[in-house]
């Protein structure tokens, strides 16, 4: 029998290798938010004749109306994509008149405009939505597993796996934003929340088996129960994964180009979700039983202030026995803080 739990540190390492580049990109470059979140206008137009309009000329035209930081991209077939601050209807009409006058008539393929206040609200709401989803799921899992000892652990481990998947997807969006100009829009948020839902979905399937097996094999060590449960559900996990991969790949290959980034985000996120539920969420239950200190160190590394707080508290108030814990937290927090500090400095240099 394959010993998933015994090799868990390797699986953690794989997760880290996938997540860390995204995190670095996130800190260095942030996310490329679309107008859904920032407010602004996008005008996509196609000139009818072979017009000699240059992106710079269009940019200049927008500048004359006080839209200096407008970005203009041109692509084949006389198609131009113009991003600017929020255009009100009157200004838009005036600019359009000028475009026709200077460069000839065109067809408006798309126009999107979001007011800055709405954009800001949506962004706030988006964070709220992700937080709400996490809390609601934590509550639900704690409820569904209420007959197990330590139900909150199940919820927490599912949430950790979920955060892992969020980092994978958001990190990916950041990297692709730098490389290919991907934008984080309302659709991305939709994909993210779906990934969250699926991630928890997968975790619950494995947890359900652990729940059942811990009742049946009450005396066995937790490693064996968890490992056995993972193996038992592995066929299901792989097969379900395959069907989702089939359908999404079909969408990716044959679907329209407008959905490509959405589907790719879903695909990667859902694969990550299955991985994390098998190789992170479930082994973490074992970890919590055997080496809870490691969880604390990991948390300290990622969120240094928490590590600092917990470390100091335990150091000052705890018994002699808990000293190594406190030291571990403080060291992890220090390493985390130094890494983030370096990255932030680097970010300052880049910008």
């Amino acid at each position, binding site marked *: 029998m394959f010993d998933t739990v015994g090799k868990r540190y390797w699986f953690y390492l794989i997760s880290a290798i996938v997540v860390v580049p995204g995190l670095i990109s996130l800190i260095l470059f942030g996310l490329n938010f679309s107008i859904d979140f920032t407010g602004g206008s996008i005008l996509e137009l196609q000139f009818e004749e072979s017009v000699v309009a240059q992106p710079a000329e269009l940019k200049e035209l927008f500048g004359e109306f006080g839209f200096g930081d407008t970005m203009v991209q041109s692509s084949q077939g006389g198609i131009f994509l113009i991003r600017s601050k929020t255009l009100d209807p009157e200004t838009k009409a005036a600019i359009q008149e000028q475009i026709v006058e200077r460069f000839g008539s065109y067809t408006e393929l798309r126009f999107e*405009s979001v007011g800055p206040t709405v954009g800001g609200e949506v962004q706030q709401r988006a964070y709220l939505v992700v937080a709400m989803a996490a809390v609601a799921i934590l509550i639900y899992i704690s409820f569904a597993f209420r007959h197990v000892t330590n139900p909150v652990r199940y919820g927490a481990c599912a949430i950790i796996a979920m955060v892992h998947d969020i980092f994978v997807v958001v990190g990916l969006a950041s990297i692709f934003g730098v490389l290919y100009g991907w934008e984080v829009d309302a659709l991305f948020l939709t994909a993210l929340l*779906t990934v969250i839902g699926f991630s928890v979905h997968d975790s619950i399937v494995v947890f359900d088996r652990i729940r*059942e097996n811990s009742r049946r094999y009450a005396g066995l060590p937790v490693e064996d129960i968890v490992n056995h449960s993972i193996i038992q559900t592995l066929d299901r996990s792989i097969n379900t994964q395959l069907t989702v991969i089939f359908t999404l790949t079909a969408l990716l290959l044959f679907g*329209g180009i407008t959905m490509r980034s959405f589907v790719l985000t879903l695909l990667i996120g859902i694969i990550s979700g299955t991985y994390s539920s098998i190789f992170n969420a479930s082994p973490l239950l074992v970890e919590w039983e055997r080496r809870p200190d490691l969880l604390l160190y990991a948390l300290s590394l990622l969120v240094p202030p928490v590590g600092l707080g917990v470390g100091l508290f335990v150091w000052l108030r705890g018994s002699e026995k808990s000293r190594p814990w406190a030291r571990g937290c403080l060291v992890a927090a220090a390493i985390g803080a130094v890494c983030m500090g370096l990255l932030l400095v680097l970010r300052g240099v880049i910008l």
Partner: protein
Amino acid sequence: MLTDRRRTLTLLGCIVILALGAAWIDLPSNPGIHIHLGPINIDRNIELRRGLDLQGGLQVLLEADLPSDETVDPGAMKATRAIIEQRVNGLGVSEPLIQLSGSRRIIVELPGIEDPQRAIETFGETGLLEFIDAGRSFLPPGTVVTTTEEVAAPTPIVPTLTVTPTTELGTPSPEPTVTGTEEVTGTPTAVITPTLPSEPEEPVFETILTGRHLVGATSGFGDLGLMEIHFELNDEGAALFEAYTRTHVGQLMCIVLDKEVVSCATINEPIAGGGVRITREGGFSAEEAESIVIRLRYGALPIPLRVETNRTVGPTLGEDSLQKSMIAGAVGLSIVVVFMLLYYRFPGALADVALVIYAAVVLALFKLIPVVLTLPGIAGFILSVGMAVDANILIFERMKEELRAGKGLRLAVEQGFSRAWPSIRDSNFSTLITCAILFWFGSYFGASIVKGFALTLGIGVIVSMFTAIIVTRTFLRLIIDLDVVRHHRWFGV
């Protein structure tokens, strides 16, 4: 045992009826439901509604243009929505969507609209329309005037008119209703005159009616072949207007939009019934009449609005994506069907039948509810196919385990279902939680794409629980009862 079988057969009957019903609804040529039974009249066209991203169109988020700390009256907001709906209907869009979003926003979606710019102008105008008492002085169009009407304040005339004591005239009827118009004759003048402005330099004109009393306006040729303007007043407006005109024959009344005079007209006779004709010597020019009518019809919104978000999608982009997504969906579905068949063999085939029923039921629901189909909505649907299969996979894997443990076929099937159920329930419920949160988020700022996705995924999850469990189980039980399947190999063991 017999009752068990009977129950299974009953379920099978229900499933067959449901599947046939769904298939009928899914027919592209479905004539819709038209039932006329005495008092019951049902007329529903059943068709798949396509969202903006699939057929092109315009989506606008309008926000009350008031200071953010000012609370917006919900009733006025509702009225504003209704007026916008009226204006939009004037544009001749097939399936417009106009809905309130939160306390101060209105979402307008106009699929397939050809001139989005003009549409926005049409409902973007936010004038306050008034009819004012100009006395005997003619006010040229464009004059800026001061009136007694404050924004959203009640018309000052209303109380004076309704209070008018009918007993003064010795009428036996004690009802002080506005509809008892005969008795009102002549009395308002005495009451109104004192309220007229005494300052001659800065005249404040009496507002007789405002836009909220107006029902409709048209232009047309009158008896003399001259262009006239007609408008219809609601009951309250008609009563006010009759009372006013009775006492002001020969005087001037002006239409004022945003405190600016649009046009003045002489009152020729007392007007009852709420239908009003405005004429002018020499008649109006066609253009002028049209312009006034448009302003009469569209001039008044109880709450000023501004365009906050605006999305226009060209139709060609959408058409292309729809076809591609449909192909993608078909390909994805076929691969899943083949996979299930190859891997789970006999039960896999049953699951495939259940999957087809699932797709038919979901599509029928989309048409019935109706769900506006968007690109992400299609993605949600395709994704939910995966979920539907997942429930079956969970069950079948469980069945295989039980079979391997040496249990009989019947027992293995029953335990496969009962043991897989908690994980199906819990995992699908967590997905439904996310769907609900997404739906709420989508409703908040009018992202119909997000809402469409949440809705289709949610419907898919719920229906999939039904088909993957009830439908597949009924099939399996029936076939085991028929005793044709003996070999475990058929179950992929």
